[in-house]
């Protein structure tokens, strides 16, 4: 299932959090060889994890992390604006309607459809929080996967070569793309919505609020 957790909620899900930061170390340090910082416990974190970002996490049936991504509003500090302006033609993105998505990570042994389920969750965020675009930093080789899912970003620029290639790109989602991603994920749209509502509260199911 998908969980939406701010950093200050992670303590309630210790296993999920630990395995997420371990899987990030595995993906970004071990597999991709990026210069990221891995601590003695084998977990990867950076300065943006200290800004109380919102994590969207695929939780496997056994409760461990299967995949995740991290969101921050571009009205505050972001990785793109602080480190990757060379890939955006020098434009720092800044708007309450643009969120940054970074550290897109998949565990080695996650279920099929995890990447698509995460993109589906990205669509929920856009729809429900009135976000128009995501600006993302990702492993350039992910573009193939994003394309296959039906949620291709528009790549603005890429630096580095081979495994170390890092891209900055933009996403927006149409309803049609959302349906396509839902099919690839094997997650019906109403299940996706139910996970979102479980995290943020539903609007439909609540009893009418009244003074009575």
């Amino acid at each position, binding site marked *: 299932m998908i969980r939406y957790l*701010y950093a*200050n909620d992670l303590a309630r899900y210790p296993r999920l959090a630990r395995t997420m930061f371990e899987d990030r170390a595995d993906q970004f340090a071990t597999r991709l060889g990026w210069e990221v910082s891995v601590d003695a416990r084998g977990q990867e974190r950076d300065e943006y994890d200290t800004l*109380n970002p*919102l994590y969207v996490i695929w939780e496997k049936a056994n409760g461990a992390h299967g995949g995740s991504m991290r969101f*921050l*509003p*571009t*009205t*505050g500090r972001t990785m793109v604006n602080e480190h990757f302006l060379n890939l955006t*033609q*020098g*434009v*720092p*993105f*800044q*708007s*309450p*309607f*643009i969120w940054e998505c970074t550290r897109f990570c998949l565990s080695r042994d996650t279920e099929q459809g995890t990447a698509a389920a995460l993109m589906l969750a990205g669509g929920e*965020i856009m729809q429900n*929080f*009135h976000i*128009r*675009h995501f*600006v993302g930093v990702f492993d350039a080789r992910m573009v193939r996967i994003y394309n296959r899912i039906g949620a291709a970003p*528009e790549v*603005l620029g890429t630096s580095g070569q081979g495994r170390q290639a890092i891209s900055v790109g*933009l996403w*927006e989602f149409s309803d049609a793309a959302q349906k396509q991603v839902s099919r690839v994920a094997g997650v019906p749209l109403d299940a996706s919505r139910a996970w979102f509502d479980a995290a*943020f*509260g*539903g*609007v439909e199911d*609540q009893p*009418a*609020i*009244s*003074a009575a």
Partner: protein
Amino acid sequence: MGYLEKLPQLDGVIARLECAEHLEDLQSAIEWLRDHYRVDHMVYHWVSANGEQYGCGTYDPAWVQRYIDQGYLRIDPVVLGCYQNFHPVDWKRLDWSSKSARSFRRDAMAHGIGNQGFSIPIRGPNGQFALFTVSHDCDDEEWAGFAELNRRDLILLAHYFNQTALKLAPGRAPEPTQPLSPREVETMTLLAVGYSRAQVADTLSISEHTLRVYIESARFKLGALNTTHAVARAMARGQIVV
């Protein structure tokens, strides 16, 4: 009321915010906005990292005092649901199930706060946190219609309010106006001389999607509500020359 009819007036209130010199100017702006949107209340409240607070808004002062006296800050589902977060919240999505939350709600309603609300949390620099809230008494359908129509403008206004408040906070050096990057200057200049979006994208050799994101970002830096407004402001500020 249509969006276009409202725009010139909203433009005016944003301009007033921008040249505000005292925190009292925020109070008059928020009263104006409350009347403009014909809602019961609008409130802006900030807390800095060292606990300093500032607020303005249209709640009855008796309610504000009661809120403080009763320690509602620790109970209020709006504050609990927004603090340290950054997604906007319709009050319907919050957890009002606890006994203390329900009794708080009854008290709030008795003070005319309204049964509907939309709150926008904002994270400013250095641990500053602010909350901008619109509340109203009406049925769900009317509220859904209002929110659908005005949500995006309200989110922008919330941020513009916060920027003004930050600028006016005592002991704070004013933030320099956010400069536009050369690429954004080109974009706004081409729009100003009448190019269509497709023509601008073509001229800059970027896609229309990328262009939309550039415009979205430039619009926010310029404190504007839409593209036309953004172009006008860029010209007025001398950031583009046509």
